[in-house]
């Protein structure tokens, strides 16, 4: 494998992990997803077109793998979103930090297609066009999913009680001190 390609793959790993964790809410499962993605990517590295965006290529592989797994699970468990949220609740200390807990729980309530669109555009820094390419849908679809995701998140986070929304500083401080 070409050294520049290897570097590009390595360089994409941190963001790929962040994407995986944001998607599935479980660090262990996310790292399995990343591992599977890397193995697939490296086995098919010749199909990567030099000069194109390595991160986008890897994200596409991970996203497709996640969605096919998700569909499988969905057949097994009717209430998938609820289960996702429960999974989060059962492992509150696993990487994170009280700090992002509320946000994560709210994110977990979103439908998967809205969640992935929001993360790709709002956190991974892809353009709407790139995100559409990764998700295999129209640019307008991504835009509307991102909008719906934001609206729903704002709604959910306002439930948690701050003035507008967001972690309550005092609660957070108390939790940080007492939690452990």
């Amino acid at each position, binding site marked *: *494998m070409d050294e520049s390609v*290897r570097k590009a*793959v*390595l360089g994409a*790993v*941190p*963001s790929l*992990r*962040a*994407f995986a*964790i*944001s998607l599935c809410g479980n660090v262990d499962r996310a*790292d399995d997803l*990343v*591992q599977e993605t*890397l*193995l697939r990517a*490296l086995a098919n590295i010749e199909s990567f077109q030099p000069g194109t965006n390595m991160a986008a290529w890897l994200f596409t592989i991970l996203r497709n793998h996640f969605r096919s797994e998700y569909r499988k699970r969905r057949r097994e468990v009717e209430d998938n*979103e*609820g289960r996702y*949220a*429960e999974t989060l*609740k059962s492992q509150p200390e696993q*990487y*994170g*930090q009280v*700090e*992002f807990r509320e*946000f*994560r*729980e*709210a*994110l977990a*309530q979103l439908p998967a297609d809205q969640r992935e669109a*929001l*993360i790709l555009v*709002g*956190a*991974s820094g892809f353009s709407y066009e790139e995100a559409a390419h990764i998700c295999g849908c129209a640019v307008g679809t991504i835009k509307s999913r991102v*909008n*719906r995701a*934001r*609206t*729903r*998140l*704002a*709604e*959910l*986070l306002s*439930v*948690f009680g701050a003035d*507008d*929304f*967001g972690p309550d500083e005092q609660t957070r401080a108390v939790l940080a001190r007492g939690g452990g």
Partner: protein
Amino acid sequence: MDTADLRNRKSSSKPAKLSREVQARLGQQLRAMYDDVVNQGVPDRFAELINRINGDGSKDRQ
């Protein structure tokens, strides 16, 4: 707060327009959460995986 309560809340059929400030704060939190993972860098298991496959055939450069 119960999860079911959250889910059962009216899921805006008519999306309210979010203020710029709310959008900005949402964006900040999303990126903070995401970057927290990004800043963890490349875990050893993945670096080893990538290097191992790279080393197939030509295992010289260490």
